[in-house]
């Protein structure tokens, strides 16, 4: 459950809730006795025992084979196979050591893989639940025009938090339903910036859809980061 600060067509704004609408099939696995089985993450190998480390300690790749025959330097019997609980993601340098201070860069590449830009990495800040509300862009797109122009990969349902925001959201849903349209939702003064819901998270274009049924409403924020169109060059990949 998250929040979003949005405006209506009159420029009034409110902080309301967003709810994920993802529905995944819950699958449980039962063992031969019909009892619940579980999964566990195990340690299979460490960097200290990988081929680069063995090569360095043996004094060359040609000597690694003999060291494998003489003993089991690639296996840490005390540790391999133990269950891993909490782990931390870290950076490792070419020497196989943990690095505490790194400089991060983003390399922007064209569809053909050529480098377009290189810049210091900037972590994007969320912009959907700030003090500045997302504006009513007024940029409507008929549903029949939008459904086959964009790939809507994610959705959030927007819900009220009290009686006042119920009226506020119901009004927006009714307005959009009457227009049979999706409204572009974006951040920034011109509503043309992508929506970012979490710090460092993915950015999306937002399309707001409203449906009503009696005194109930359904306000859906469709999220897209891809247009439904064929790549200009035949560079698309086949099913992997």
């Amino acid at each position: 459950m998250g929040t979003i600060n949005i405006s209506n067509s009159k420029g009034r704004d409110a902080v309301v809730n967003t709810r994920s609408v993802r529905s995944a099939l819950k699958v449980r696995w039962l063992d031969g006795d019909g009892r619940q089985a579980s999964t566990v993450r195990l340690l299979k190998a460490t960097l200290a025992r990988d081929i680069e480390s063995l090569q360095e300690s043996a004094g060359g790749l040609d000597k690694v084979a003999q060291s494998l025959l003489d003993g089991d330097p690639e296996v840490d019997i005390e540790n391999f196979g133990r269950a891993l609980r909490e782990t931390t993601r870290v950076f490792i340098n070419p020497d196989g050591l943990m690095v505490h201070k790194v400089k991060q860069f983003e390399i922007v590449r064209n569809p053909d893989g050529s480098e377009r830009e290189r810049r210091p990495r900037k972590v994007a800040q969320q912009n959907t639940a700030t003090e500045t509300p997302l504006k009513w862009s007024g940029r409507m797109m008929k549903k029949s025009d939008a459904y086959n122009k964009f790939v809507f990969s994610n959705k959030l349902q927007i819900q009220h938090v009290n009686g006042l925001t119920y009226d506020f959201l119901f009004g927006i849903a009714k307005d959009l339903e009457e227009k049979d349209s999706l409204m572009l939702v974006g951040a920034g003064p011109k509503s043309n910036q992508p929506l970012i819901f979490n710090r460092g998270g993915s950015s999306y274009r937002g399309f707001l859809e409203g449906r009503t049924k009696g005194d109930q409403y359904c306000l859906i924020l469709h999220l897209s980061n891809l247009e439904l169109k064929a790549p200009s060059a035949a560079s698309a990949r086949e099913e992997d």
Partner: protein
Amino acid sequence: MAKPLVFSFNGAELPLAMCKVERSDLYGFVETEALDEKGRKCSTGSLASDGQTLIGSRGTAIANLAHDGTWVEKSQLSPVDGDGKKLAAVPSSFAAPIPLNDTATIDEYLSHSIRSVYQMTCEGDAWGPLQAELKKGTIFSFPYSFRGGLQPDAAFLLLGADGNTFLAIGSPTKIEFVGLQQQVTAEEEDAGDGEGDEIDFGMI
């Protein structure tokens, strides 16, 4: 060449070639590079909770344990749903022609989250009648599973605004109508000029 997805439409079998469409094909992509103090490229790994064991990207494995904690192979386990009902495996969509009998409305299509998209092509004119139907705005829907598995995805065959035919694969969502009583707990205005700026997907 990858195996085509075969559809059955108007009594004819239509093998359509699939070509995955990804963001990187349209807009390019961004790579992140981390350099240490000497300017050497770093990789990412995991540090175990003991604070000293470094694990590379392929250094872990997932194991299945029976209720008593003993090792068990996945093939010895049987899948059930949340209510304990046994789940039957579905065959791969490539195993037999897919009949295009069902259609979806725009609202039904919009109620799904789309995970992947393929451009569909067919050699020759055999798919003329199917294309004619798609040009009317028809969205065909059918269950889809690439390898076969426990639950098929929802798939839609539709014509894109650029005139190409696409297969959109996704899953249904839990969208529901809410009334005043279904309240959810939790908590400036500046008129925009609404200028018709282009929707730029490349910038995100």
